[in-house]
């Protein structure tokens, strides 16, 4: 277990003082520190309507930035749209839990007004969780899947 030094604490303080106060995330080694002001989190969700069937059109590829996390890396949605697990309705999903992915592995499709955008993992490792449900709206930056980096 890595200990924090006084310099680390100074660094935390600087982050808080000089930057956005509402939330602070700090990662060092296997330690993840996350502060968020009460009441400042994302608003609670109104129920979404049932999603249309996933389309089968070919898709543009959008690399997803990777956010490191204590229990693995979360792959966030690179854009807002409807997230699909499979290339078309009834087809096998691009990935499932336990799969090994490379940075270029397609993990799903995000549709924006009939435009299909392939999403790649952006990180190599083992898929540990599928976070965003099939056929529902994902926000920009919303975590889609979780990957344990190799």
């Amino acid at each position, binding site marked *: 277990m890595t200990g924090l030094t006084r310099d680390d604490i100074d660094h935390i303080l600087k982050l808080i003082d000089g930057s956005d106060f*509402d939330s602070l995330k700090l990662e060092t080694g296997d330690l993840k520190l996350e502060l968020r002001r009460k009441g*400042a989190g994302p*608003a*609670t*969700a*109104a129920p979404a309507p049932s999603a249309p069937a996933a389309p089968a059109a070919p898709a543009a590829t959008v690399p997803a930035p990777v956010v490191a996390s204590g229990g693995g890396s979360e792959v966030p949605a690179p854009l*807002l749209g409807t997230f699909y697990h499979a290339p078309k309705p009834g087809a096998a999903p691009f990935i499932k839990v336990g799969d090994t992915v490379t940075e270029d592995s397609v993990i799903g499709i995000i549709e924006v*007004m009939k435009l299909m955008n392939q999403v790649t993992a952006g990180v190599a490792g083992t898929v540990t969780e599928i976070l965003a449900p099939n056929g529902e709206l994902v*926000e920009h930056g919303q975590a889609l899947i979780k990957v344990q980096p190799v």
Partner: protein
Amino acid sequence: MTPIKRIFIANRGEIAVRIIRTCRALGIETVLGVSQADRDSLGAQLADRAVVLGPAPSTQSYLKVGTVVQAALGTGCDAIHPGYGFLSENKALAEACANEGLIFIGPSPDNLDAVGDKLTARTHAENAKVPLVPGGSVDTVEEAQALATAVGFPMLIKAVAGGGGRGMKRVDRAEDLPAQLDLAISEAAAAFGDGRVYLERYVTVGRHVEVQILSDGEAILHAGERDCSVQRRYQKVVEEAPAPHLPEAMRKGLHDAAIAYARHINYRSLGTVEFLVDVERGEFYFLEMNARVQVEHPVTEAITGLDLIALQIAIAEGRPLGMTQDDIVLTGHAIECRLNAEDPDNGFMPSPGRVSQAWFPSMPGLRVDTHMTPGAMIPPYYDSMVAKLITHGTTRDEAIATMQTALKVCALTGVKTNAGLHAAIMGDETFQQGGVDTAYLPGLLARIQQGGKA
């Protein structure tokens, strides 16, 4: 009649909060589309749901038509309110809404066409017999010279696709016209992708007066006029209603012209017809029509008692206005000061950052529309307007006095603001006399800069 149950708000800042206020009163749910920079904003906290459209820059979030429509559909909304600015007068959004079965809370795509292009708008005004600044469109130097001879100098060259003061060139002498015209055409082509220009008489002393229109498609009513002459670089700073010291015949002429224009283009929704009032000649000229709710709508709400956002939603639902012109009674006088996070001592540079205190207490005659709270962040990516102070009094003097008190009492600290400028305007004798023109504020700023007390 299609009752709206859930509105997607495609905007930010105070107008998003303003729309949420009326939706809560009406029992309509709200979903707010925000950029990453606005995810902790007051609007995002107050909406029933907020979704992140994209990164901070508007071009990657607030201005993406497809993303906005997808977000509205994906969150089960049945309507989109575009606010002002951003996509509020965007025909592609209005059309996409129509295609996807969403109600666009604004006018039809045809209406947007009729007012969106300055030259088309001018043609409509001519056909509706609404007075225009003498001038017209020109393709060649010869046409321009002929027009100038007929109208007289000084003249203004305007880009058809311009707006908000961009794409304008003043020409004082005939010998300057050819070169300036060439320059204007190439600049317009470069800036707007549209090289068309037109020429107008340059009105040296003018007042900016606009008429609020309400139309359900059948009844076309006006809700009085607003005077927005206190401007800095074509940006409105102080607005008021009614316009002070307007001859009653001219006031009625403005109202009638605005209704005639709206009727001519079969306008249906809330809208505003803007005029330039030529004080020297005692005439007024059509400028343009804004097919959205305006920043300064609260002064009209103050003197009419109407909720313009509620009416805009009702019209979009297909409800009749349910009133006649006589039902709109104007009472007292209202003034609005736009509080901007900017530094008056440093060329009005935007002053983004974290707000430490934001306190706008209830006071008799004061309304404040704002998205500021203690600890709120003002991101550097968007407009610097952070609050609107609106006062309403029996008389104009009373509205000014209440504004002076409000400026003393309210607090917005942590960032620089133009509150001091507003205090200077409210305390200035010329402004207090009423009826200033668009040259007033630059003159006051020059006086302040010269160390003379405003």
